[in-house]
């Protein structure tokens, strides 16, 4: 396309993404149909024979790996691979889509965009689809001199509801924290805050202190996964999802299930924490009951501290700069 208007290039990228997602979904559907056709075309006798052969193969494997309910966990434990989702908040909101969700980065200088692109590659672009670098809002910093030497991040996507809003807010803070400290390290304009949408009171601005450069450790995903599984078991929880946002260091998203039949949102609290080491980038911790409904969640980011805790069916982030650490 022969135009120098960035907006048109961004719009084209969005349309390409939609087209790719549609093609992928159509491919998956036709694969499922082909599979179903294949199943139908196998005669009943062959199907019985196949089932018997499968049972014969699976029984020794199950015996080797442990009980059927824990065998897969033991395998994960041994290989050190992260547990991949059943369903997390992003997926419950948007469905599972496997195409690459690159976050759009707008505004700022080339160096700022480069740094921010590196950071947003480590977060989930489904919840944070777009971020713009600009000067701070006039209401926050009216001085034109200071506005030129400082930066602000704008997350102009629609506000999410429920736990997805918590996860989106958590990811924006991960991005903002890593960008603030990265900017300081590279001598770029100082990031002093961000504006993002909230479900009930619209776009809100939050100022950040620092740069603080807390001692974030690079971390090892496999080792941290094993640690988290052990901690969750000690807490009497069954791990369901452990994945990592990685704006710079690691920030686990942990979803676990409780067998407490009386658990409900606002009445259930965990005994202990799956992660107590605040040298990681942060933690998003969600607990579901046996029906898959959220009964508890907690979000924390280490660089830009802000607590976010449960209670209520439409939870609201509390932008406290003090926050608390797990």
């Amino acid at each position, binding site marked *: *396309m*022969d*135009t*120098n*208007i*960035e*907006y*048109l290039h*961004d*719009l*084209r990228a*969005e*349309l*390409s993404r*939609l*087209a*790719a997602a*549609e*093609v992928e979904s159509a491919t998956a559907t036709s694969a499922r149909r082909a599979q179903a056709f294949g199943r139908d075309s196998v005669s009943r006798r062959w199907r019985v024979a196949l089932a018997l052969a499968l049972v014969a193969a699976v029984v020794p494997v199950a015996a080797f790996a442990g009980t059927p309910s824990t065998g897969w966990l033991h395998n994960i434990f041994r290989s050190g691979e992260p547990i991949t989702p059943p369903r997390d908040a992003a997926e419950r909101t*948007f469905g599972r889509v496997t195409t690459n969700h690159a976050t*759009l980065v*707008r*505004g700022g200088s080339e160096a700022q965009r480069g740094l921010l692109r590196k950071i947003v590659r480590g977060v989930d672009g489904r919840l944070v*689809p*777009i971020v*713009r670098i600009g000067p701070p809002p006039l209401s926050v910093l009216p001085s034109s001199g200071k506005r030129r030497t400082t930066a602000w991040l*704008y997350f*102009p*996507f*629609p506000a999410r509801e429920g736990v997805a809003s918590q996860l989106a807010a958590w990811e924006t803070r991960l991005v903002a924290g890593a960008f603030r400290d990265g900017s300081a390290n590279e001598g770029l304009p100082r990031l002093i805050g961000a504006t993002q949408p909230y479900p009930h009171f619209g776009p809100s601005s939050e100022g950040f202190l620092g740069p603080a450069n807390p001692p974030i450790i690079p971390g090892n995903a496999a080792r941290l996964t094993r640690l988290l599984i052990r901690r969750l078991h000690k807490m009497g929880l069954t791990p369901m999802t452990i994945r990592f946002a990685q704006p710079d260091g690691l920030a686990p998203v942990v979803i676990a299930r409780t067998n407490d039949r009386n658990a409900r949102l606002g009445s259930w609290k965990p005994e202990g924490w799956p992660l107590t080491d605040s040298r990681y980038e942060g933690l998003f911790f969600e607990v579901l009951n046996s029906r898959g409904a959220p009964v508890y969640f907690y979000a924390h980011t280490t660089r830009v501290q802000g607590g976010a805790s449960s209670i209520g069916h439409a939870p609201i982030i509390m932008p406290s700069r003090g926050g608390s650490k797990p």
Partner: protein
Amino acid sequence: MKTPNLRTNLGGGLDAAGFLALYDSEAEVLLRFFVRRTLDPQVAADLTAETFLQAFASRARFDPGRGEAGAWLFGIARHQLGSYLRAARVEQAARERFRVAMADLSPADYERIEALIDFAEVGRLVRDALGALDPDQRQAVVYRVIDALSYDAVATRLGCSEEAARARVSRGLRALAKAVAAPTGRT
């Protein structure tokens, strides 16, 4: 402008590659179409995004036998423009449906899109159209739009009722809008 080599599905509809080819050939033309009619780059950008997403949603219904894809796209665009002019706000149903959040225009884009308007040409058209108006309508438009008088004051100066003043301004503006839009077609 004839739309080049669009791939269509058998039995009609545009496939993904065909749709992106349509975008490549028409995006800037459509943006220019909107900005010349709204004189507002941000509104024009929003209308462009909404039009393409509406077209994306309904591309299976495009029938190449009934005309070229560009004409079909501009049919959707005119509908969007009409809605905007009636409601004074851009629809966002398609953007919401596809969860597409376009950022506001950057200052550089704002200027680039404004450059598409070609104010000299628009000014000439408006001057010509104003000159061609009935003298009562012209005076009513000048009092109301340029001098920003209330309808009450316009009526007093023209020596007519307030309803008649409103009607003259309205007819005059409609004629101006037609003169600005008509000769440029899709551009």
